């Protein structure tokens, strides 16, 4: 029997067909179509070509372009905090701590709760006068701020909740990365008289680099695309100070401005590509081989 014929038959392209149909029709086609419809005034049934009008509006209207700045701030904040907090926790939970397995599960648990449920819970905890957090602060003599009502603070508050919910994923990836580092490196360093700081900065961080890079990239892209937490906690307010591109897209959709909403989508695609791909290249270059 001719093995080559058998190969082509066994690994037939037909196996790809169902996936190609679904992924193509429900993801690739809409993505391609969005580039055209972002240039139109559109009601889903009729569309008028308007050139770059939607994009010009998006960049000139302050209630719209604030979303661009907020989205980048939000992504940098959440990704940065998840990486720093997650990594420190991972170092702590790979040491000889007795409660580490329990703590791991506890920190991981919020990733299982839906974003909406988390948002509702923290909106309540953050209540300026009655909320449990400000009550707790009052008992130690601090007058808590209006977490979600203060224009300077609101986006940061939402970002902190995002970190609370998502740091568990970063944690498990980091733990896997740290546990994969061969133990004899640490033994060698101990013989050379290295202390805990040397261990951390010269071994753990550089050798856990692949895990670090994955988390940075995943968290950053997730932050850029984020929508539901902001929507539940602030609805974009106060004013437009916590609006992200994704929440603006939803608002335009609700208002029936489909062309403008699609332009928002295209801008988000460009934003993610323009930031994530260079970041990916930069991070892969910095990776060292074991």
């Amino acid at each position, binding site marked *: 029997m001719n093995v080559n014929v058998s190969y082509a038959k066994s690994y037939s392209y037909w196996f790809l067909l169902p996936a190609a149909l679904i992924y193509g029709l429900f993801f690739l086609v809409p993505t391609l179509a969005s580039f055209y419809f972002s240039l139109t005034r559109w009601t889903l049934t009729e569309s008028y070509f308007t050139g770059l009008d939607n994009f010009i509006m998006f960049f000139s209207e302050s209630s719209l372009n604030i979303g661009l700045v907020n989205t980048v701030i939000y992504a940098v904040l959440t990704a940065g905090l998840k990486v720093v907090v997650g990594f420190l926790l991972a170092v702590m939970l790979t040491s000889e701590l007795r409660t580490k397995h329990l703590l791991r599960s506890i920190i991981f648990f919020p990733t299982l709760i839906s974003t909406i449920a988390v948002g509702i819970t923290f909106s309540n905890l953050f209540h300026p006068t009655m909320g*449990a957090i400000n009550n707790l602060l009052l008992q130690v003599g601090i007058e808590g701020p209006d977490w979600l009502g203060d224009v300077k603070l609101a986006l940061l508050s939402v970002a902190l909740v995002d970190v609370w919910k998502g740091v568990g994923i970063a944690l498990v990836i980091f733990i896997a990365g740290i546990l994969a580092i061969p133990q004899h490196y640490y033994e060698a360093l101990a013989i050379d008289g290295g202390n805990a700081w040397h261990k951390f900065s010269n071994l753990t961080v550089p050798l856990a680099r692949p895990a670090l890079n994955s988390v940075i990239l995943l968290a950053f892209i997730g932050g850029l695309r984020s929508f539901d937490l902001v929507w539940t906690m602030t609805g974009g307010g106060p004013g437009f100070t916590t609006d992200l591109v994704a929440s603006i897209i939803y608002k335009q959709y609700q208002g029936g401005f489909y062309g403008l909403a699609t332009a928002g989508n295209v801008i988000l695609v460009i934003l993610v590509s323009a930031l994530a791909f260079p970041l990916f290249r930069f991070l892969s270059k910095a990776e060292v081989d074991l």
Partner: protein
Amino acid sequence: MIRTLRRFSLELLTVLLTIVVFIGPLLFILFMAGKTTPEAGDMTLSLPKNPQYGENILAVFQASNFLLVRAFINSLMLTVFSIAVLIVVSAMAGFVLERRSSRLLSITNSLILIGLMIPPSVMTTIWVLQGIGLYKTLFGLIMIEVALGFPFAVLLYRAFMVTVPRELDEAAMMEGCSGWSLYRKIIFPLLKSVSATVIVLSSINIFNDFVNPLYFLPGAQNATVQLTLFNFMTRYSTQWNLLFTNVLLLTVPPLILFLFFNKQIVAGMVAGAVKS
């Protein structure tokens, strides 16, 4: 001696802080769900004086003409069907993508990577769904969930296929077992552990999904569980006890999955992150 003591107290402090920060909000949900409406209105982190979990659960289920029951059925159907299709489709694709290499397949791989990165376009997806008569249907939403879950799932399958030796395929081909029967009888059963991971991770994702049902399956009749939470939020803006009972009820299914499939969940997340 002093150093050990200092180290011990530092450790104790971080452990305590972690517990307060991460368990506090969870206890809050648990306590609020057992309170009476005026008691919950105080928003304090305290034990319910006369726990009335039974009454609250009953009230939440009965609200809006048993909306939550309908929503649970909708979410269950959405989750089960989406995952079934996702597994069939992704496992087959992952098999061929790993075994063969060609120009066409490398383009396919890039298209899959794009799907992992860029956000889906909402309005044009509605346009496509409307064009083929699937807008506002459960089947349409299932297709969307499959399309959006596909890049991650196929990545897991492809990565696992590397560990399945090719000699196995060749031996099977010698015996005349090739094509569909090779895949069906030999390969797919070997992918069991990936399938378990995909089932657990996707069921949590889809059950907790809010955005896609919001856009693609609007309407109270079609509500999925996360959307009921949103409806309750305006309705019970003062009845926090019932809202938190609802939150508690929606957290039970993922919690059960976590207790039984802890290992698969973590393994899947780690594999997905490191292999991509």
